[in-house]
């Protein structure tokens, strides 16, 4: 191994509470690193990760370059290999793990038990994170993955209340990472097949949700219509702001209620105000969603969260969310609005 390579391989030290930021491209990775991410996560340009979108993600050379850039600035790189290998050919997933090790990724994020077993056997020193796609919402599940594969961190699905997160943290030796900001999945990750029901492709099978190639926009006399696989997901009146037709975020009819967000509004999760509680209960990392977002988005979100986390760690008791932070994040949020989601029990 060349000295340059071994320098790039030196894993930065762990921080007490980590900010984990998305990188869908090399420019986004640099923005995240420059604006204070402790870790960035990325994936290969194929179905091995859950943001398998056209024009997004990394080839091998870009990962090598990204890891070099991040490591030289004290930032870790986590590689997401978090879809489920389909029966016919698991080879691309095994190759992805081999590549992650070769390139010096600091950890791999996975959901599939077969892959976790492969990685744990072949690379006993490789750090394993259980992906949110693993649907582990309780301490028994997390401790089971720990016992079976030695996972060191688990990312919790966005379905638990704050109190439930605490119950998990209290009963596991595994580090807990939670989602802090970004588009909100209202379903338990890893257990949602809505997208494949409509299009044949889902997060589990193809690393996608409501894929763009099935989306059709049409101007009609009734308004602008957004369709997925031919199904009308939403219709917008003139002047109404149209959003991407993620199938659970459309307006539908149920019983006598017409045209309402029966499943979920277009909104972003934002947990800035929960930071002191998350830190206090022993959560180890907060994840920012959005590998499909622009480098400018990543820069702005990372910057706000870095400042908030530093403030919180410095002066936990006096921490208060600054209006400026919220204003900046709301501008970037889906539907320009935010929610505490399931963390907040009265959520309905």
């Amino acid at each position, binding site marked *: 191994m060349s000295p340059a390579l071994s320098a790039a391989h030196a894993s930065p030290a762990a921080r007490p509470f980590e900010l984990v930021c998305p990188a869908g491209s090399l420019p986004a990775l640099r923005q995240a690193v420059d604006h204070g991410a402790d870790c960035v996560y990325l994936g290969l340009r194929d179905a091995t990760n859950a943001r398998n979108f056209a024009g997004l993600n990394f080839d091998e050379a870009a990962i090598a370059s990204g890891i070099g850039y991040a490591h030289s600035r004290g930032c870790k790189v986590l590689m997401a290999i978090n879809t*489920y290998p389909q029966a016919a050919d698991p080879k691309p997933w095994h190759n992805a793990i081999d590549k992650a090790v070769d390139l010096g990724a600091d950890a791999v994020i996975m959901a*599939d038990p077969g892959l976790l*077993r492969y990685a744990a056997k072949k690379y006993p020193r490789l750090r394993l994170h259980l992906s949110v796609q693993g649907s582990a919402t309780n301490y028994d599940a997390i401790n089971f993955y720990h016992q079976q594969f030695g996972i060191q961190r688990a990312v919790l699905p966005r379905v638990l209340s704050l109190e439930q997160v605490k119950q998990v943290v209290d009963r596991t030796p595994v580090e807990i990472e939670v989602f802090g900001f970004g588009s909100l999945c209202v379903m338990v990750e*890893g257990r949602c097949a809505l997208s*494949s*029901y409509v299009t*044949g492709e889902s997060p589990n099978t193809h690393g996608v949700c409501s894929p763009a190639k099935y989306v059709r926009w049409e101007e009609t006399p009734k308004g602008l219509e957004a369709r997925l696989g031919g199904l009308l997901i939403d219709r917008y009146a003139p002047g109404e702001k149209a959003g991407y037709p993620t199938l659970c975020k*459309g307006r539908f009819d*149920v019983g006598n209620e017409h045209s309402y967000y029966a*499943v979920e509004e277009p909104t972003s999760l934002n947990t800035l105000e929960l930071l002191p509680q998350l830190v206090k209960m022993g959560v180890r990392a907060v994840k920012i969603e959005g590998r499909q977002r622009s480098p400018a988005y990543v820069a702005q979100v990372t910057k706000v969260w870095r400042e908030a986390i530093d403030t919180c760690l410095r002066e936990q008791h006096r921490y208060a969310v600054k209006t400026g932070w919220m204003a900046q994040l709301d501008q970037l949020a889906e539907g320009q609005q935010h929610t505490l989601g399931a963390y907040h029990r009265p959520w309905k």
Partner: protein
Amino acid sequence: MMKLSLGPVQYYWSRETLLHFYEDVAASPVDIVYLGEVVCSRRHEMRLPDWVELAQRLGEAGKEVLLSTQVLLESGSDVATMHRIAGQEDFAVEANDMGAVRCVSGKAPFVAGPHLNLYNADSLQWMADLGARRWVAPLEMKRSDLAVLQKTRPQGLETEVFAFGRLPLAFSARCFTARHHNLPKDDCGFSCISDPDGMLLSTRENEPFLVLNGIQTQSARVHSLLRDYESAAQIGVDVLRLSPQSQSMMDVIGLFDAVRRGALTPDRADEQLRALLPAAECNGYWHGRAGLESTAPEAR
């Protein structure tokens, strides 16, 4: 001959309705019955001792009976209920979460439920090593992928396929039924008991799309592999799972049974089946297509 199983009731039915339903089930030709509340722990018409008592009766009627665990475990009491199911020794367990697998593994042979995401040979081998004696393929799995897994499946492991019923597509922290009634989840009034087959969600063009069943979202269309019976038999599927609907369920069971006994052709049976369904039929997943599609069996 393939075995027929009756999956757990996904909806909230009154105790009386459930007990009547299972009286009929006891006399029906299904071989295996999965019992228990798998969707929402707030539903309390039946408690665990009631399910166990029912299981005993169905066992006496000659059925293989298993207790199913809840799919999404969030609260401490969800986990405690799962522990009680895993801890009893009278009936085998269908584990529907990895937490439940942890609790049953090494104790007694168990069934790995349809939401454990076993998509490939390595995962399946792992599950068999942990003590599964049967597994239920993921809903999304296409026949050609299942055929690959069948070739290398671990010895002694039975394969079960979700073959009838509205597809349980997603689970959430949010209760969509309570949301519809503008009620908080923790004070929901148990309103889902009024919807024995869930609440239909349609697009604004009036096309039936999904069904809201508490925290679960189902397909509006009714998945059926009755027409695909032969293609499932060919790849050595052992068990076909039928998921209960509130109306005509015994007739549905009868049609699957008639096909497996050769008393009706799949096509004839399917014609009769369509008249018993609350919505259009689909089988797209089996054919590697969008789940809502309806595809004729491949010509052979």
